[in-house]
């Protein structure tokens, strides 16, 4: 299983803080991005680059080429705005 989590505006747009996916469905971050869809039917892929969304695998920021393996935690979030 892969654990997928969302933060901030993405959490609200997905209406979910995350879910689990079967490992055999995805090989890379880019593959996972293509698989996801917002509740209104928008493909996640179409907003991912456009909104400069970020992704972290096991709490390390990575890019779309990053491979995903069993047990990984994949987090999607907008650019940070703390401080």
């Amino acid at each position: 299983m892969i654990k997928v989590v969302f933060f901030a505006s993405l959490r609200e747009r997905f209406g979910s803080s995350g879910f689990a996916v079967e490992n055999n469905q995805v090989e890379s971050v880019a593959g996972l991005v293509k698989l996801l869809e917002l509740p209104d039917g928008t493909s996640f892929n179409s907003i991912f680059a456009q909104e400069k969304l970020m992704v972290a695998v096991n709490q390390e920021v990575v890019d779309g080429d990053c491979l995903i393996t069993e047990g990984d935690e994949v987090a999607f979030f907008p650019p940070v705005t703390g401080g």
Partner: protein
Amino acid sequence: MYLRIRVQEANFSPAEVFKTLREASNGVGAICTFTGLVRDLNDDAEVTGLFLEHYPDMTEKQLVRIVENASQRWPLIGVSIIHRIGKLVPGDEIVLVAVAASHRGEAFSACEFIMDYLKTQATFWKKEVGADGEKWLTMRDSDQTAADRWQP
């Protein structure tokens, strides 16, 4: 090096942080602190509150890495970072970064470096509550520019 990083809902005491850093060593000659507060105006719109969320564990790891990078550039004696999450109102403290060093240039630079990277790399997000409802804030280009200027 003394290092303390806290992400918490509770308010904090800058005086207590300051005291701890002073007492970290008799070699401390300079302490620079930065405190960020909730303003009642942002981009000319009235703000009645903020909601802050973060990515637990990842945030703390990012902050430790930022401090490690700072301590490779400047000889630091102590660093304390407190960042609040949850609901805040205008006048509330959001963040405190305090840096103790032997000399002032090091303390100033490291404190600003840590703040600039905290703003662009630490996994915090702010939602602003105003007269027109709620909205998630987006990163300012000026924040990315501020962080980029530290790069070689």
